């Protein structure tokens, strides 16, 4: 019996939410035919987030041109780009009454720009509706194309996230078609292009890495300009995906949070059910508060 089929450890049980909002959110998403990574990624936090009307939009279809070993999103022929996608996302955002919007996508290696224009279009549409909307983008690696990163940055997102996902050694196994250095380059490039955008990344524990390897990756991310980091337990979405190698304990997650603070991250969310976009709004507000405090301290001293 593999690890995940065995009884889950006590700390790895997710509490379901039964709030009525869940049904309304699902209705809104289907009304505008917009997809979320919450559903396509089989996220265990879905009832908790939907009950708070919090979603992460998945643009440019739910068929991915890559097949990472940890991911449940289908590797299939990609969908045609929907020219009306940005207004559909905006309508859904209005109905959800969101103040913080997260946009992610599958990897679109079939497109010359990797989908950067579509990201930019969605961001601009949201910002044109209201500058007060805070927009986070969680982008693929665009094959490392700097022009694509620039297209997204120039559109004016507040948070630029790109997930490193796993440690350097496990890339051939977990992320064939991607590159550890390439992903760091995407982050470095974004940070060079905009000093004010908040840089964020995320990774999983449980694919077979050691604690030291995780800490090395944290240092690499910090050196690349990352300010916010999420670390969560990998859960295998199905039998065709990579198996879970181990369940990290709560103490280990707490250590990452502590070490993250010591090496200069402004915010580290680390816990079994932490996912890239989990409580992203709260994380962003903490970062902003800290920035404001530091600016204030700098101004008065």
């Amino acid at each position, binding site marked *: 019996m593999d690890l995940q089929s065995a009884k889950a450890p006590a700390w790895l*049980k997710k509490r*379901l939410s039964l709030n009525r909002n*869940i049904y309304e959110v699902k209705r809104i998403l289907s009304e505008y035919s917009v997809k979320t990574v919450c559903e396509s990624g089989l996220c265990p936090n879905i009832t908790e987030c939907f009950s708070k009307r919090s979603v992460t939009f998945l643009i440019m279809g739910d068929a991915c041109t890559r097949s990472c070993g940890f991911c449940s999103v289908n590797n299939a022929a990609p969908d045609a780009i929907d020219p009306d996608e940005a207004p559909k996302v905006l309508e859904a955002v209005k109905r959800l009454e969101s103040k913080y919007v997260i946009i992610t996508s599958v990897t679109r290696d079939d497109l010359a720009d990797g989908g950067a224009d579509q990201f930019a279009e969605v961001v601009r549409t949201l910002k044109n509706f209201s500058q007060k909307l805070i927009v986070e983008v969680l982008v693929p690696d665009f094959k490392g194309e700097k022009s694509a990163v620039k297209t997204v940055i120039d559109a004016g997102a507040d948070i630029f996230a790109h997930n490193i996902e796993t440690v350097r050694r496990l890339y051939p196994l977990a992320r064939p078609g991607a590159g550890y250095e390439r992903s760091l380059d995407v982050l470095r490039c974004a940070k060079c292009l905009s000093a004010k955008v908040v840089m964020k990344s995320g990774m999983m524990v449980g694919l077979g890495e050691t604690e030291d390897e995780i800490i090395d990756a944290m240092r690499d991310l910090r050196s690349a300009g990352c300010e916010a980091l999420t670390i969560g337990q990998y859960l295998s979405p199905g039998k065709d995906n990579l198996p879970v190698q181990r369940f990290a304990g709560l103490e280990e997650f707490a250590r990452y949070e502590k070490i993250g603070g010591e090496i200069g991250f402004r915010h580290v969310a680390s816990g079994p059910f932490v996912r890239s976009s989990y409580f992203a709004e709260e994380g962003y507000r903490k970062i902003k508060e800290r920035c404001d405090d530091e600016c204030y301290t700098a101004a008065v001293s």
Partner: protein
Amino acid sequence: MTNVTLPPLAEGIDKANISYWHHSVGDAVSEGENLVELVTDKATFNMPAPASGVLRQILAAEGDEIKVGQVIARIE
């Protein structure tokens, strides 16, 4: 009488298995306390009681597969 139903978990996850009932028929339960533990291919979940009252019926046994929307218990 309040029906206890499985909420939608995600697209593609339309079922779960009951692993453990925290209560038996006749028990008084409070809204929000853990009622039943469920397992899907991806994770283990604790489902809270949707209302306070007496657990009158349990309609799915430990080990049973249940579908999203299915009534699995009644609280009065």
